[in-house]
């Protein structure tokens, strides 16, 4: 495997949180590599360190030990402003509870990352319109989130996470608050769009079906990688 094909590389990663007077390890000596364009599911019980791992990958939390390399760059050395720009350019994040901005319409939510990047207005409009069409929400583009169903809101969130063409998409239980059918549709959409984009997808889930629809499944337990499938 050539280094240029590796999207994510974790070396000796460790993270602990204070719990009373003691430190409780959440991730311990984690070694892992993910290829560019690969779609990986992270499975594990609550508290196994899945969400912490996503936070470390997004650069919103700092590792206590080890290093996080994304696209050949150690993000631990970027500092706060560097991490902000890294997220702005290279990361798309999808949450369980959508986290759309309630005071912006679906279209405006999707436009926001492009505006932060300073993409030219007409180009930004075109790209957000394309993406909204791909997620099947062209007709609801001017609706505010409160008028959309959960599935629709998550589709807007996916469009917002992908509109700036990130190389790494992180999804934290994206189907966790949706019914089974809707969840399946949303997951399928996410996988397809990431594939079209060539983006690497790391997805945290409790659904075995969803996990097994991914290229690879990593199982975490108490912060350690306990199995890799296939």
């Amino acid at each position, binding site marked *: 495997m050539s280094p240029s094909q590796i999207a994510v590389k974790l070396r000796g990663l460790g993270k602990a949180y204070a719990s009373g007077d003691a430190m409780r390890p959440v991730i311990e000596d984690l070694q892992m590599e993910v290829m560019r364009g690969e779609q990986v599911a992270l499975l594990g019980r609550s508290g196994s360190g899945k969400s912490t791992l996503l936070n470390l990958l*997004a650069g919103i939390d700092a590792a206590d030990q080890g290093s996080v390399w994304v696209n050949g760059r150690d993000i631990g050395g970027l500092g706060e402003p560097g991490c902000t720009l890294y997220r702005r350019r290279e990361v798309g994040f999808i949450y369980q509870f959508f986290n759309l901005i309630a005071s912006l319409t679906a279209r405006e939510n999707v436009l926001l990352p492009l505006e932060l990047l300073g993409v030219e207005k007409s180009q930004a409009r075109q790209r957000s319109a394309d993406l909204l069409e791909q997620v099947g929400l062209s007709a609801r583009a001017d609706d505010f989130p409160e008028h959309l169903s959960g599935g629709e809101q998550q589709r807007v969130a996916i469009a917002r996470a992908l509109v700036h063409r990130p190389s790494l998409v992180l999804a934290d239980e994206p189907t966790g608050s949706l019914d089974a059918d809707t969840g399946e549709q949303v997951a399928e959409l996410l996988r397809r769009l990431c594939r079209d984009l060539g983006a690497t997808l790391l997805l945290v889930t409790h659904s075995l079906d969803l996990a097994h629809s991914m290229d690879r499944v990593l199982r975490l337990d108490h912060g350690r990688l306990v199995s890799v499938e296939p």
Partner: protein
Amino acid sequence: MNSLLGRAGARYLTRHPGLMLLSVLGIALGVAVSVGVDLANESARKALRLSVEALSGSATHQILAGTDGLDETVYVRIRREIGLREAAPKVEATVLYDDQALRVLGLDWLAEASFRDPQGEAVPVSASDLLNADDAVLLTPASARRLGLQSGDRFSVSQAGRVHQLRLVGLLTGAQADNPGLEGVLFTDIATAQERFGRAGRIDGIDLILPGGQRGTALAQAIAELLPAGAELLARDENYAALDRLTRAFRVNLTALGLLALLVGMFLIYNTMSFSVLQRRALMGSLRMLGATRGQLLRRVLLESLWLGAAGTALGLLLGLLLGKGMVSLVSRTVNDLYFMLSVRDFLITPRPFLVGTLLGLGTSLLASLPPALDAANTHPRAATRRATLEQRVHRLEPRLAILGIALLALAPFIVLSAERSLVAGLAGLFCGIFGVALTLPWLAGRLSMALSTLVSALPRAGIWALGLRGFARAGSRNGVVVTALAVAIAAGIGVGLMVQSFRASVDDWLVQSLRADIYVAVAGPDSRMPPLDDELVRRLFALPGLRTQSAVRTLNLSTPSGDLLVKSMDLPREGFAGFGLDTDLADKIWPRFERGEAVLISEPLAYRQGWKAGDRLTLLSPGGPRQYPIAAVYTDYGSDRGVAILPYRAYLRDWGEAGFTGVGLYFDKSVNLERALAQVRRVAADFEGVRVRSTAELRAHSLEVFDRTFTITRVMQYQLLLVACVGVVTALLALELERVKELAVLRATGFTRVQVMGLISTQTGFLGLIAGLMALPLGLAIAWTLIHVINRRAFGWLLELQVQAEPLLHALGLAMAAALIAGVYPAWRMARVAPAAALREE
């Protein structure tokens, strides 16, 4: 700034219009009170300037004479020996017309042309009409309208027991006709004024137009050398500045109250902005996840608050204009009562208050929103993924603010003492202390509410109360800010209220102590230049049956090397001397010297202002030259904040050679029926015009009436301050309920009735008021102490005793609870009407 970020912020605000409007109103009221006071102050100040300018025409300098005026030959010498043609003499007097004080200005119309009537258009009658008639006067058309007089009317005015028949021969025309500074001024020929008002051969001043440069300086020097003792040559601005200084302390105190309202408003802005940031923490986290930088979020929040601030400030300026218009009469009345007869009564708008109000409104908005803006900028992206409670951040911030508050509190005394006599340093220290306490209060409110709620919850059958109080305690930090705003407003009310109450009690004590006679007879009129009472009247009064003894006073403005001084020359019996409230031993020691005319007393304000003390010497410029009098004691006197010296009448007679009294006090035998005696005195006085007879009780009541009138504006401002705080309570409660809408919906879904929800919220608001009231008590006492011992002392020179009674404190506590409960009615009503299903659906 990104337009979508801006749009998101703007829509958040427009989605909560009530909250936004109340925030704007909070800022607006803070700005309005501050601008209103400033406008009223500036208007009165401008009125003072216009009055001075109008009375001196286009003179560049004025020669001001002492009480006795100048010999008119001084004027002749200035024209002949110095050769200055642009000089005009004048005689001034104050007369009463229908109980209204009017200023008489006697002018030499021939010399006057270059001063106020260069085109000769002002006087509509021939000069001979004025010169040859000894009753001819002129008024501005506005004055004539106000007084109900028409050209050709005859009317009478009185001065010191004498009635003068005057004739309005015409109304001023041209530019002078519209001069607001000439409102209430009766113009007459100088000879008429001299003859009518007992100033034969004397003039009260000379207006001069001196050229600039070296020639002007040389002329001024030559004139100054020519002046007798007691007269001084002042540039017009110096004259205005001297009067301006007199009213400065009064204005500064009012401005301070206005700024206090703004401080309360500032807490409201902080509350609104921190609430809006806390409520949007998830949104801020999402934006940070999307790549928004800290700077972008900081700018966004500051810009939002700037918009709110701008809207509030604009509304505040408008309200301030209306408020100022309402308050100017109160300010002018106090200036008239205490300092100077303003002839200008109009509301004069100057741009400065608007400019200052704009800067204060926007500045405080930005300052107050800086902490929440920094909070927003420091939002961790993880906030997007966590349902962190809004309390957490505030909880962490509180102890830090409390430490900063304690540091400011510790700094306050140093600011106060940094300049021993500076009023501004005193007020700056007071504000620093109040601000320090205010920063500590949210933390304290949190702890107090926890303790109280635990206490109440432990009570049997606490029921809904306990639930409400626990909810209140949980939101302690959030409540802390609004409790602080309310507590500061209530504390300011307590402080100012106690100060006024202590002041009033001190004045009352002083009146009781100093008014030793049974009946007082005095010349009617505000001017210390009033000629004395008719000798015949005094003789008849002193011959009344049953009269045990009498006191007499001649009130004068005498000259000292450092300017004019109000002097009361008193002829007192021993028991009258006790009225100065001196220690018995001291009084026994001083009395013989006073009686012999060998010592003077000075009032506290005079001692404070001049730095004089017992043992020093007071120099007065008598006709025979400077005379020095040992100061025997400093006594309490609330009659004048400029200060008074008490000169034995014997000394006045000896050194000035003038007899006559402007007031007498009559002491009757105990067996005499005082009502009958009063009736008898009134009958005697009725034969003399312009004489005022008052019993001790009437004089005391009148003095307290003037006192109460002086502090009306203070009370008005106290209520304005409370109004600002009430708006803050409504805003905060609405914000709190918005935050708890889901929790309340769960309660409704569980079976809570609307009434119970309202009861729950009312319990919390009442509790909020109680805590604010409890915390306001010590702060209010501290403010009162500072106002009395620092501010009042520095502003007016008075030493007062802080008198604390339970009633005003309980009143303040009740007011805090009532204000909170009233402010909570709307939020309670609103939340009781929320449909549970809709609220539960909302994310």
